[in-house]
């Protein structure tokens, strides 16, 4: 029989299905982790935790939810009022979605700051982006399910944008909606997708973590570490306890939101049943879509270029697509911004730009907001193309330490 440290029943199982060594190598003593990971490295496990919460609460909600235009709103109110702890399940699920995005956005910006997307972790990064895209589709379809005014009109406005595709636009819109307008058929298919996508996310997360384990976690210094040296420590117990602490903080924030401000993240109009005859004065998506919504609406030169709407759609898709190729745009060998003083400044400008786009996304396409949105969009794309490229090529980086334990030795600056 194979050699391993497990005895008794565990040994018997391990001989037939080496699940314990798999777990141990994934999140146990067998996973060698850099010893200097800071709290920004907590957000990966937090995202996993949030995903599990969404799936559990979602499955429970699905037992009572009625996916029909006539019954959806009623069934949500039934859950809120008559189902035991239904209000808790629903508020956890709706606020959990928001926090999931918050956590994943931080996780992504962590990757941008510490250069986690660089070789040899490009595929890991790209898998993460696929997860992000799937999350967006999940959230969008989920937001339609309560069938309130914002649900209905968000679905109408967003599907309508696809009519800009030349030639087949109208067909695509009808295909997405399953009908000529957003109605019962749309709700049914969105529900089907909303149930499906999270499990696709689970699948990709597994591959994401698989890819993570090939080269191990990066670290705030962005240098390569060797397994088993003084630079690494076993994941368990050091990072298990740190991740648990992070989850504790996360749950406290989550609880305050769910129990005291459960409707903070949602729009009041969604407590009005969907009414195709009444357009709300101001249709806005959920907060985590606002920067993308701003980019979608930034192209307003209908009189200058044909099909301005289509370019808006392309720009919005491009805002994520561009992130897939940044490992090849930013060619700097130095990963961490700690050693890239100039990039660090531009990183924070980019963060400010995303916030600006978020504010613009919440405003009507009118007056100053048009021009702020266009500036923000232009800057976003220039950052991830030209600016990253030039920084990677010309920036004078600070000297890298040889290892995590070693202090920085005064030496020649690392220049590419």
């Amino acid at each position, binding site marked *: 029989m194979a050699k391993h440290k497990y005895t008794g029943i565990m040994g018997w199982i391990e001989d037939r299905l080496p699940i314990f060594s798999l777990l141990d190598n994934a999140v146990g003593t067998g996973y060698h982790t850099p010893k200097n990971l800071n709290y920004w490295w907590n957000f990966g496990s937090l995202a996993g935790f949030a995903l599990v919460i969404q799936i559990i609460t979602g499955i429970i909600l699905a037992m009572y939810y009625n996916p029909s235009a006539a019954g959806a709103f009623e069934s949500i109110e039934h859950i809120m009022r008559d189902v035991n702890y239904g209000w808790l399940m629903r508020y956890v699920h709706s606020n959990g979605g928001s926090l999931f995005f918050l956590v994943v956005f931080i996780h992504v910006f962590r990757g941008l700051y510490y250069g986690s997307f660089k070789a040899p972790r490009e595929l890991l990064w790209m898998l993460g982006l696929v997860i992000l895209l799937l999350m967006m589709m999940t959230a969008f379809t989920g937001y339609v399910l309560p069938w309130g005014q914002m649900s209905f009109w968000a679905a109408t406005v967003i599907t309508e944008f696809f009519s800009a595709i030349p030639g087949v636009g109208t067909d695509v819109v009808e295909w997405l909606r399953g009908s000529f307008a957003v109605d019962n058929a749309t709700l049914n298919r969105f529900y089907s997708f909303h149930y499906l996508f999270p499990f696709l996310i689970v699948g990709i997360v597994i591959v994401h973590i698989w890819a993570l384990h090939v080269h191990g976690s990066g670290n705030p210094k962005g240098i390569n570490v060797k397994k088993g040296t003084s630079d690494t420590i076993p994941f368990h117990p050091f990072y298990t306890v*740190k991740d*648990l602490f992070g989850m*504790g903080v996360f749950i*406290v924030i989550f609880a305050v939101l769910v129990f005291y401000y459960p409707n903070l993240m949602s729009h*009041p109009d969604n407590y009005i049943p969907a009414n195709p005859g009444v357009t709300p004065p101001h249709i806005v998506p959920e907060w985590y879509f606002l920067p993308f919504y701003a980019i979608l609406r930034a192209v307003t030169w209908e009189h200058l270029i044909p099909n301005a709407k289509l370019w808006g759609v392309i720009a919005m898709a491009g805002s994520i697509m561009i992130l897939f190729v940044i490992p090849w745009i930013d060619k700097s060998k130095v990963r961490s911004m700690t050693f890239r003083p100039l990039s660090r400044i531009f990183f924070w400008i980019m963060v400010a730009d995303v916030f600006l786009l978020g504010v613009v996304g919440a405003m009507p396409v009118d007056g100053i907001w048009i*021009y702020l949105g266009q500036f923000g969009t232009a800057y976003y794309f220039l950052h991830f193309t030209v600016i990253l490229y030039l920084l990677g090529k*010309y920036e004078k980086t600070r000297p890298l330490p040889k290892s995590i334990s070693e202090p920085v030795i005064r030496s020649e600056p690392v220049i590419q």
Partner: protein
Amino acid sequence: MDFLKKNVDKIVALLTVMVLALFALRIALFLTFSPAGEGTFRYWMYDVLGIEAAAGEERPALPPNQVAWPFDGPLGQYDMASVRRGLQVYRESCSACHGLNQIAFRNLTEIGYSEGAAKEIAAEYTVTDGPDAYGDMFERAGRLTDYFPSPFANQNAAMAANSGAAPPDLSLITKARGDGPNYVYSILTGYGDAPDGFEFNSDVTNYNPYFPTWEILMMAPLFEDMVEYQDGTEANVEQMAADVTNFLMWTAEPNLDDRHKMGFKVTAYMVVLTILLFFSMRVIWRRVKK
């Protein structure tokens, strides 16, 4: 050609700066030359100063008055006596025009009525039931499992009876408007005489600056002493407005009391657990050398 090849990075950088400068210039031009109005800098400042201005409305509603509600804050709970008085106001005034379709008579036991009392209230309403064995609909007295009947048969009937605006169902109104409880209270107490020169768009001249457009098709629904409270509370307009708002908050969020109580337990428990985890982490990490 050679020059281009050698300096391509510089040219790209220059172009980038120029593109950004163009977009920035467009913002500057707008700020300098546009008239004050929707979307301009001045308007934006107005917005930042806390005056909510909905898009495209000539007369954006005034921000609602801020009232200290008993259900506010982490430890807030409903004042059930007030909620019951609010039910009375709803039944004697609002129910003439507004439905309450999420609330069943059985729910009234949650605000302090005995089952018998709730049954009595239900029996005061007639509801349509059926079809009976002959296929006919019939009317009968309400029961605990019935919901508050709507005052109008349908949307069109509601509109026809109210100068063209259907009174919305009130079950969820305090969650379906921004700053809901304060908004409802402000609407109910915000009627007044229109200032000189104020132009109404419709024949129904109800001036109310807390409603967008400042004119509302609902006539002032509350008058001093229009209800007689059983507990002797003075029935002035503010009191009735506060009571009915408390009631409508309860109809929108009947589990708020439980939610706040459970939230306190969960949060306190998690704070303690997290502190313990923090110190466990410190102890475990002591073994790691910097």
